[in-house]
């Protein structure tokens, strides 16, 4: 069973792809029934994804948190799981047309970074690894979800501006609903984004003797945090709404992506084993 890791993760990738096609097809052809197929495909993909993470845990002997591939498969599972939970609770299959393509993109990227299971290197042998990476999954996963919702918001506004057919508009939630959902997921992500940086800092203090060294990864994680801090202040003090808030959330997630993937590729530093 243990050599089934690659087929399992590839299966998850294709199931997500099928789910994304169903969800997008639902909007393009305005067929409500496709949502059901999308949900099943996404659920099957999630099951395969979780299996892949479990196989990796068994083969490596540690939680799948030691490199970008391992972290990536857990992150994608979190994003798809969050979407399915929101869909189950609030019935929002339109979001699937944005969340699932994101999951497909992410799984594709993380497959490129595939690494075989290896024992942990000395710097990673710490209890902080678990806390650090779990907070990263929750924070980045929730922000990825907020990004998918922000895209849905932009699309809905585009449809409104074009006076699209009521049949299509009825399939996509109101902009105010989407904005509130986006804001909720950012608010939820913020404490975890904070803990992500704090656990990283405490861990760095134990591992490298310094809780802050302005390493590129540290600096960009701080930039991400500050950008979302500006967003929170903008909403609370200047009552940012609609397009301004949504654009800020989209830009925020672009910076998350840079912090998470771009820094590892372009700005190597202390954190470079993540690749």
């Amino acid at each position, binding site marked *: 069973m243990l050599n089934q890791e690659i087929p399992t993760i590839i299966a998850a990738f294709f199931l997500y792809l099928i789910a994304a096609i169903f969800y997008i097809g639902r909007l393009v052809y305005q067929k409500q029934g496709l949502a059901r197929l999308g949900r099943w495909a996404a659920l099957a993909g999630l099951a395969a994804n979780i299996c892949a993470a479990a196989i990796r845990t068994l083969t490596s002997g540690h939680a799948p948190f030691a490199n970008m591939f391992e972290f990536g498969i857990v992150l994608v599972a979190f994003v798809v799981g969050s979407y399915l939970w929101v869909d189950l609770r609030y019935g929002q299959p339109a979001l699937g047309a944005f969340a699932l393509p994101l999951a497909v993109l992410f799984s594709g990227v993380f497959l490129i970074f595939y690494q075989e299971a*290896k*024992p942990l*290197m*000395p*710097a990673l*042998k*710490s209890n*902080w690894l678990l806390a650090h990476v779990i907070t990263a999954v929750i924070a980045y996963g929730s922000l990825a979800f907020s990004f998918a919702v922000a895209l849905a918001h932009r699309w809905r506004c585009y449809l409104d501006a074009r006076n699209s057919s009521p049949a299509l508009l009825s399939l996509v939630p109101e902009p105010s609903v989407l904005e*509130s959902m986006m804001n909720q997921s950012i*608010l*939820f992500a*913020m*404490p975890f984004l*904070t*803990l992500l940086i*704090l656990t990283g*800092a*405490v*861990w760095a*203090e*134990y*591992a*490298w*003797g*310094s*809780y*802050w060294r*302005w390493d*590129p990864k540290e*600096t*960009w994680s*701080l*930039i991400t945090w*500050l*950008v979302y*801090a*500006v967003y929170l*202040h*903008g909403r*609370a*003090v200047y009552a940012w709404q609609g397009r301004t808030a949504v654009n800020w959330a989209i830009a925020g997630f672009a910076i998350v992506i840079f912090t998470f993937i771009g*820094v590892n590729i372009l*700005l190597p530093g202390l954190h470079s084993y993540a690749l």
Partner: protein
Amino acid sequence: MKFSSPGNVIRAFATMRMGLTLLAIIIVLSAVGTLIPQERDISAAGPVLHFFYHTLGFGNLYHSWWFGSLLFFLCLNIACCSLSRLPVLWRDTFAPPVWPAAMSWQRECRLALPPDEVAQRMRQRLKQSGFRVWDIGTDRLYARKGQLAPWGTFLIHASILIIALGSFYGSMAGFQYSVLLAPGDSVTIGAGSYPAPGCPFELRLNTFTTELYPNGQVSDWVSNLTVTRIGEDVLSQDVKVNHPFSYQGVSFYQASYSNLYEITQQATGHNARKLRLEEKQPIILDDRLGIAVVPLKYLPDFDPKRPMVSRSAQPLNPHVIYMAYSGGRPLGMNAVAIGNPLSIPGSPIELVFSAVQEASGLDVKHDPGLPLVFTGFSIMGAAFFLSLLPHRRVIWAEIRPNAESTLLVVTISGRSQLLTEELSLLCQNLAN
């Protein structure tokens, strides 16, 4: 606003707008700092680059005076904004109920119940939803909840100041440096330019081992250290990556490893001189002629066919790979066996690499600001969750008895978008 008086300057400075402007500048500069390689040697570069890198401080951006000033002003701004919010926060949380002089009612419900029953139910429902309720006279109710979330926000800002204070104190009163020790070496800690309370003491490296996984990958580097005071061993402990060791407020971290090269230098007609070099540290044989040797790598089992890779980890054919320089220019890489003499053309001095030891790189750190920083971290982590709690809302209600029914007028205030829904739900619940 005119900057005509110091008061106006301070007021303009303590605004959110100023805080966000500072944040934006800090975000941009932090990003710039990751794109410019920091703290590099640019001695070969031209004057323009020197001016930019050293005089303007872009070569050590995060520690430049202007970046530090920006961080300081941001902290000052946060402190001013938070302090100016504190009285409001205090009043909202602890002050007795306030009844506005002119109340505009948002909702009316007519209930076929006696006034006492309406008041009773209202009180009960509000308490169930977590409100604290006050009776004002016999016909008015005041209720509020969600006092903790704004305190969470306040504490997040306070924690930033605590962290900043701790890190500033640590950078002023603490120190950090690296030492490279071979087994048997001792070093004095907390003396000279790095004083610390409870010091000095001696630190000795007993053993340094590299632990491997079965597949040959490094599992850990372990330094066994002993603290000695006035010649007596006080305590011994292993230090590994992620497991530092602290004594008298000084911490020791397993930071790196390197080889130390023992070299015997022999010039004709002179006594032999022994010295010890770190890997990639040059030994200058003739300063004037630019003759030097740099040990690059130690190979325990040298293979002439594949000169850069050791055949095994056993010291079967120990060699040192070195780079020789003459006239300041590299002559090329070469290998020399341990114990064999090595001479560089043009230099009368002969070198012998007599032994190579695996040495442990330890970071030595004293940071008295750390407890403050970690306190700030804990407050920040907890305060963020506190700030997620439902936001403050206040309900004012008046009960007006009619002939056969009771009219209840209610107003709610707060920051949530769902206030009107909440009010409707409350009124519906009252009837049941």
